[in-house]
């Protein structure tokens, strides 16, 4: 095994870990940043996406189409959840945590009742390549590219479109937005649905790397949750990127120096330490420092 392979392996793992966090957390942080709700059922939304993608794939749809279907299906599930439940808990962080945790239990148990404990699979496409005697899957890099593309798309949606401007107004001052004719309820429903659609796409993407079961979501919710809390809501998208850069770095180093289990635990530990220093998350911390620098 050559040194070049060893070095590339670290870089590869860093991007792989980042892709995992970015994909798992993107929908969650959008909902948290825009509406002050942490959706603990986000993993179950991903599970729904994974099942839709796998079912569509086995029914003959090409994988990209299956993944888009996962996004659409999860988005529609999001509309239903928002109308029935989430709507009543905006900007109530603790209540929303408990309620959505309950939802996550209901959805995963319902999936278990309906689909049984059997598992589904999707093949991992694109094969592999080797560097310095190490073999690497191409698909992991595709995951990273898709994660980046999704984040850019969401950023552009909220930055440039009429919907995005109305959504940011509704977030900053819902009463004034309503007085300007913005239908804030509709904006919230759509934003929640977009967050769920991102979860569905992520579920469809991960369906090609992991086995799908009713408890599929549990693999992702804790990490996504930590990433979101670390990122903070001051600037959701930048927060997500900062948190993923930092946590993936810690995880990559810890799992190579020690082992993958230590890598996993190190994410929790490093998030804990970071939150002691930056209680409102990285994006809030950076915004404050910038504001202070501007004052000088």
């Amino acid at each position, binding site marked *: 095994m050559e040194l070049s392979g060893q070095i590339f392996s670290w870089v590869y793992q860093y991007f792989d870990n980042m892709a995992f966090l970015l994909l798992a957390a993107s929908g969650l942080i959008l909902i948290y940043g825009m509406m002050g709700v942490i959706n603990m059922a986000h993993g179950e939304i991903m599970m729904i996406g994974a099942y839709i993608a796998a079912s569509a794939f086995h029914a003959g749809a090409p994988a990209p189409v299956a993944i888009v279907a996962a996004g659409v299906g999860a988005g529609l599930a999001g509309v239903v959840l928002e109308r029935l439940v989430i709507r009543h808990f905006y900007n109530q962080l603790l209540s929303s945590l408990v309620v959505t945790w309950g939802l996550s239990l209901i959805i995963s148990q319902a999936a278990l009742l309906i689909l049984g404990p059997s598992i589904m699979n999707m093949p991992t496409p694109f094969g592999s390549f080797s560097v310095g005697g190490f073999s690497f899957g191409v698909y992991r890099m595709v995951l990273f590219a898709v994660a980046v593309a999704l984040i850019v798309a969401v950023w552009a949606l909220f930055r440039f479109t009429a919907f995005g401007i109305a959504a*940011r107004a509704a977030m900053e001052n819902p009463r004034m937005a309503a007085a300007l004719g913005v239908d804030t309820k509709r904006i919230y429903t759509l934003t929640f649905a977009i967050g769920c659609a991102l979860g569905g796409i992520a579920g469809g993407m991960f369906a090609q790397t992991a086995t799908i079961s009713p408890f599929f979501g549990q693999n992702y919710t804790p990490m996504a949750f930590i990433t979101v809390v670390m990122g903070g809501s001051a600037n959701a998208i930048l927060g997500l990127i900062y948190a993923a850069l930092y946590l993936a770095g810690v995880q990559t180093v810890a799992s190579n120096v020690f082992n993958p289990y230590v890598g996993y635990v190190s994410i929790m530990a490093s998030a804990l330490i970071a939150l002691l220093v930056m209680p409102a998350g990285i994006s809030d911390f950076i915004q404050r420092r910038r504001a202070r620098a501007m004052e000088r």
Partner: protein
Amino acid sequence: MAAAAQLSLSSVKSGYGRVKVIDDVSLTVATGEIVAVIGRNGVGKTTLMKTVIGAVPALSGAITFRGVDVTRLDATRRARLGVGYVPQGREVFARMTVAENLALGMRVGDAGRTNLDRVFGFFPILAKRLSQQAGSMSGGEQQQLAIGRILAGRPDVILLDEPSEGVQPNIVQEIGRIIRRLQAEEKLTVLIVEQNLALIRAVADRCLIMDKGRVVAEIAPQELDDPETAARHLSI
């Protein structure tokens, strides 16, 4: 003025939860009329404005706008019918640019670019600051943006809540002139809550005096030239 009533309230009561702030207000504002609501602090002027736009629900009574009963409509629907609101404290979207604030205002109307040029005609400074964050502007500039944002949606009635607050005197004068121009050129109907005697005198056609949640009297603006009358009705 003999013109048709643009906005009318009849026996409206409203408040927050069980605390009634507006206790039986009836008033009418005719098309193209500028009516000032004056009174000391805490008599319910701002709550009255919020009740008219639908941010605070009316507990009883009726609010009609151009003959349409809007009492049960939410703020979004009322805005789309042509009721524009410039709140106390301006409430521009501080983290968004001037252009984005104006774009939000334009949503309610079928307005296009020519309409924005019309707004820049009233407030030239906005055209020069399009990409600036609204929160970083001075109080007077934010007030111009708040009014410009509403004008961009081409409302038929605007409600102004203390537009002079925290704004330097020359800008207050300018706002007064613009309100008069809007009345003359576009027959805009205005309900204004104000404490600034000079601005009331500059724009108001008549003054309603509020006390303890009721309209207790109506006076002509000239009557406020008497210092005693002014002192009685304004918190100076």
